[in-house]
């Protein structure tokens, strides 16, 4: 069974943390098409959180088309995403990004500047690819 985690110091609303975890787990293949997410009651008892928080997260995932609720049975992962990244590669990419972000922060770039830089580099790469 899938297990959620919550970081109460992160400042990210609890329901969004659940949404992110499912998205990420689907992306790296920890959750696959047809897998059942914890029942609301199971998630509530795992995490000691409000049931409405879990239903809100599941509603959003359903809205995104990532999961499929089957009344009386549970909530199931609806489809594999377009790209699945092997966990090892995902972890490596993540470490690289962490290193880069630390360097950027040390150099004085704030979140906005980082976002702007990312957008610029992406656009340039796309243009290169098209050329």
């Amino acid at each position, binding site marked *: 069974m899938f297990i959620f985690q919550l970081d109460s110091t992160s*400042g990210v*609303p609890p329901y969004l943390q659940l949404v992110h975890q499912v998205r990420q787990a689907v992306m790296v293949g920890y959750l696959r098409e047809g897998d059942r997410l914890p029942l609301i009651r199971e998630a*509530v*008892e*795992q995490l000691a959180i409000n049931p*409405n928080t879990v239903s809100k997260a599941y509603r959003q995932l359903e809205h995104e088309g990532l999961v499929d609720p089957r009344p009386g049975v549970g909530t199931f992962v609806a489809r594999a995403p377009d790209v699945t990244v092997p966990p090892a590669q995902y972890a490596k990419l993540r470490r690289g990004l962490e290193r880069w972000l630390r360097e950027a922060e040390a150099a004085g770039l704030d979140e906005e500047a980082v976002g702007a830089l990312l957008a610029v580099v992406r656009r340039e790469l796309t243009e290169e690819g098209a050329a």
Partner: protein
Amino acid sequence: MSAALVTRGLGRRYRSTWALQDCDLEVPAGAVIALVGPNGAGKTTLLQLVAGLQRPSAGSISLFGELAPAQSPQALAQLAFVAQDHPVYRRFRVSDLLHLGRSLNRTWDQDFAERRIAELGISPRQRTGRLSGGQQAQVALALALAKRPRLLILDEPVASLDPLARREFLQVLMGTVAGEGLTVLLSSHNIAELERVCDHLVVVAGGRVQLAGDVDSLLGDHRVLTGPSAGVPGGPGVVHVDQADRHAHVVARIGPAEPLPGWQARPIGLEELVLAYLRRAREPWPVPSEMELSA
């Protein structure tokens, strides 16, 4: 959704001092409501008024659509109350407590109570004074839930528990909410923990309700604005202002409106929101009315 609890003009006076005044609340059934505020703010008074342990000096309380006169049997049958430090009779055996609960309550689910005690790994023969704090809290909760209340009131339920016992207590509580649609009203100082378990918030200070509502809508309505200290906006939406030499942070209730030019807005966290209202209650910010909050 129907209302579990409605208070109108509720107040309680001790001699000449109002411990709670003009309290208007409306809480939907199935909600988990956090009651927060400094010590002496009136939290316990409010909880005890709702639980029928004190009589109001003013105003009224309705439970599940019916006016609930203090200490009326009908009102008491619908609710359960666990006082601060979850007191149990220390010389009683756990089985004595269950017997007491069965004898004193109109509704009582003995099977549920026995099952919960067994799940906790507690022997019914044990004297409650010998149990750990976490076990005493769990026994108190089991007793309260065995009454099958529609409204459960908890005064600082986890304040005296260690982190593991807190988590286990809240797991049982939230599991019951998920399974049975129980309405829970609880007071606490730990806002990070409340954010996990509560969907409604009531902030009390100085004997008055400062803020009440659905947590997600309250967070969506409020934002932190940062801008030049010379142009601090006023108006009824301003909750609290932190003024530095050249800039100021303003907690404001402006909804999704665009802030004034030159001001930046960011989302607010639950703790920041509560603190802003508590600070405002302590030192009211004089609100100039001629300036507008949003462009």
